[in-house]
C-alpha cells in the first residue's frame, strides 16, 4: 500500500521533528548561496535563529521576481560543477526562472514522483505513457524518471500528435496516462472521430492529470469519458516539477509531501498566515534539496489545507484542489472571479463541450465579460431551446460570480484548441 512506508506514515509529531531537522540543515546550506547569504545579513538573521518551525516566519519570502533578478545561477547553493541538470520556465514574461539540480536532487525527485504514482495504485507491470512536453518542461523528465523509478514500462510519447498518442496507447497496452486535462478532452474527441472506444479498445485504467487548474466536474467528466480513475497531480518547476502533492485513492485532496516541503498558506495581501482551513496563497520551503533550495517561496497558487484525517493513513497535509493563481484572478466591476469558478458552472451543462474562452472587454466605458463556449453537438435545431440554454447558463453563472456575463454558444471546434495549456482568458480591457 505504501512505497515508502516509514516516511508516508509518519505521525504529525514525527513529521514536524523531521521538518525542523531538515529545515535547519537547509538554512545552513543556503549560506552557500550568494542570494540567501545577503538576504540573511540584510535582515540580521543567522541560521542559528531557526530553533523551531515557527522561526521559519522570521525568514523573508522568496518570489518569482527574486528568481528572475538572480537569473540564472544567483540563488544556487552549490557550485555549478556539482549540478547535473537544469530546468527552466518558458520565460514569456521576462527572464525565465532557472532551477539547477544535483544528482541527489534528481534521485529524491524521482522518489517523490514514484511515491505519488504508487499511491494511486500503479505498479511495475503497468505501462505509463507521458504526454507532457519533454525538454525544459519538468512534466516530461519528471514523470519519466519517477515512473521508471517505480519500475513501470515508461513511454515518453511527449506532447502533441494525438493520433500517434492513440496508436501508442493501443499498440503498447498503455494502462496509465499522464496528460493535462484539456488535452485528455482533445484525445477523446479524436478517439470519437476515429471510432475508438477507450473502454473497449484500450487498457487505460488510470489517468494522472495536472498542470492546469481544473474543477471536480471536469475530473468526473474525464473519468466518465475515458472509463478510468483520474488523479490530480500538483507540481511546479520551482519545486522540481511534478511530485509535490498528489491525490491518494480517496480522491479528496492532494497530500503534500512534508518530508520534502514545509507548507504555509498566507493572505497574499497582508502576507500573514490565514486561519487553518481558509484559502490563501501557497508558500513552500524545500527541505530536501541541495542544488537550489528555496525558502518560503511564494507559489502564487491559491488553495487551502483540508481539515481532518485522511482514511488512507497518511498524515501528510492535504491541499484542496487549486483555486487558480493569485495572478489569474479576474477583477471585474470590483468582484474577484477565478476562471475555475466559471469552468465549474459550464461543466454542469451536458450540452456544452469543455472548451471555453473568457474575454474581458470595454464596451461604452463599461467592463464586460464575454464567455464563449462550444456546444458539444447540435442537440436541437430549435432557436428557442438554444436561447433557453443560454439564459440558464447565464443565470447560474451570475449566481456564482455575481456579475452577469454575456454568454455565447459557438460551434464545436471554433475556439482555439491548443495542445499545450489552454488559454482561457483574454483581457482586452482598456486601462484607464
Amino acid at each position, binding site marked *: 500500500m505504501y512505497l515508502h512506508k516509514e516516511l508516508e506514515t509518519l505521525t504529525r509529531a514525527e513529521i514536524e521533528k523531521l521538518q525542523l531537522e531538515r529545515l535547519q540543515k537547509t538554512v545552513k546550506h543556503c549560506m552557500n548561496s550568494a542570494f540567501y547569504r545577503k538576504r540573511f545579513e540584510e535582515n540580521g538573521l543567522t541560521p542559528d535563529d531557526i530553533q523551531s518551525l515557527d522561526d521559519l516566519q522570521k525568514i523573508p519570502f522568496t518570489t518569482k521576481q527574486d528568481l528572475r533578478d538572480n537569473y540564472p545561477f544567483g540563488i544556487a547553493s552549490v557550485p555549478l560543477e556539482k549540478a547535473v541538470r537544469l530546468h527552466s520556465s518558458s520565460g514569456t514574461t521576462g527572464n525565465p526562472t532557472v532551477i539547477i539540480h544535483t544528482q541527489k536532487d534528481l534521485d529524491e525527485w524521482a522518489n517523490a514522483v514514484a511515491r505519488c504514482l504508487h499511491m494511486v495504485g500503479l505498479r511495475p507491470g503497468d505501462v505509463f505513457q507521458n504526454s507532457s512536453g519533454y525538454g525544459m518542461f519538468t512534466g516530461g523528465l519528471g514523470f519519466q524518471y519517477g515512473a521508471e523509478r517505480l519500475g513501470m514500462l515508461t513511454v515518453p510519447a511527449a506532447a502533441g500528435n494525438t493520433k500517434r498518442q492513440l496508436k501508442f496507447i493501443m499498440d503498447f497496452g498503455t494502462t496509465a496516462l499522464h496528460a493535462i486535462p484539456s488535452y485528455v478532452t482533445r484525445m477523446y474527441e479524436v478517439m470519437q472521430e476515429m471510432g475508438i472506444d477507450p473502454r473497449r479498445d484500450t487498457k487505460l485504467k488510470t489517468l494522472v492529470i495536472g498542470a492546469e487548474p481544473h474543477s471536480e466536474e471536469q475530473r468526473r467528466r474525464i473519468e466518465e469519458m475515458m472509463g478510468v480513475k483520474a488523479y490530480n497531480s500538483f507540481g511546479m518547476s520551482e519545486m522540481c516539477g511534478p511530485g509535490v502533492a498528489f491525490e491518494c485513492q480517496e480522491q479528496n485532496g492532494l497530500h503534500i509531501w512534508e518530508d520534502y516541503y514545509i507548507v504555509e498558506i498566507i493572505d497574499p495581501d497582508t502576507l500573514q498566515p490565514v486561519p487553518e482551513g481558509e484559502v490563501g496563497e501557497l508558500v513552500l520551503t524545500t527541505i530536501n534539496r541541495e542544488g537550489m533550495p528555496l525558502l518560503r517561496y511564494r507559489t502564487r497558487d491559491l488553495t487551502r489545507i483540508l481539515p481532518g484525517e485522511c482514511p488512507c493513513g497518511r498524515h501528510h497535509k492535504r491541499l484542496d484542489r487549486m483555486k487558480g493563481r493569485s495572478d489569474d484572478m479576474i477583477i471585474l466591476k470590483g468582484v474577484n472571479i477565478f476562471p475555475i469558478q466559471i469552468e465549474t458552472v459550464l461543466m454542469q451543462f451536458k450540452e456544452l463541450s469543455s472548451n471555453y474562452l473568457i474575454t474581458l472587454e470595454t464596451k461604452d466605458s463599461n467592463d464586460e465579460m464575454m464567455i464563449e463556449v462550444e*456546444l458539444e*453537438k*447540435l*442537440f*436541437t*435545431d*430549435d*432557436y*428557442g431551446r*438554444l436561447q433557453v440554454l443560454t439564459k440558464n447558463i447565464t443565470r447560474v453563472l451570475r449566481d456564482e460570480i455575481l456579475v452577469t456575463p454575456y454568454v*455565447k*454558444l*459557438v*460551434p*464545436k*471546434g*471554433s475556439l482555439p484548441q491548443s495542445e499545450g495549456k489552454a488559454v482561457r482568458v483574454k483581457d482586452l480591457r482598456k486601462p484607464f
Partner: protein
Amino acid sequence: MTVQQLSIFIENKSGTLLKVLQLLKEANIQLVASTIADTVEYGIYRIICSEPSRAYTTLKEAGISVALSDVFALTLDNVPGRAADTIRILTEEGIGITYMYSFLLSGKGILIFRTDNPERTREVIILNDLSFITDKDLSLKA
C-alpha cells in the same frame, strides 16, 4: 410525409456560410432549398438537398456542427390559399408550428415545417389525406 433536413450550427462570422456551401459543392451535392434566420450571435442553417446522408457525413467529417432530422414536407396545389388551408387544419388540432419555409419543386409548392407534436401531426396528415413528398422525390429530382 417527411424529408431529411440538415441543420448546421454556424457562427455569425464572415466565411462560415461559404465554407459549408463549398464543401457541398465539392461533394457534388445539390441544394433543393435552404433557409437561415438572422440572429446576432449564431445561425441555424437548414438545408434540403439531393443526398442528405452523404451531405451529413461530408460536413461532419469536416468538423461542422451538423444534425440530420426529419421534417414534414407537404405538397400544395398552385392555388391561392392552400397554405392557409393546410395550416388551419393543424392549428385546429392544437398543433404548434416551430418553424416553416417553402419552395417550389416541379411546379408545386412544398411546405417544410416542424411541429411541437410530430405523432399527432402524422395522424392529422393521414386523416385529412394531405399530399406530401418523401426523400425519394428529392433524389429523383437530382
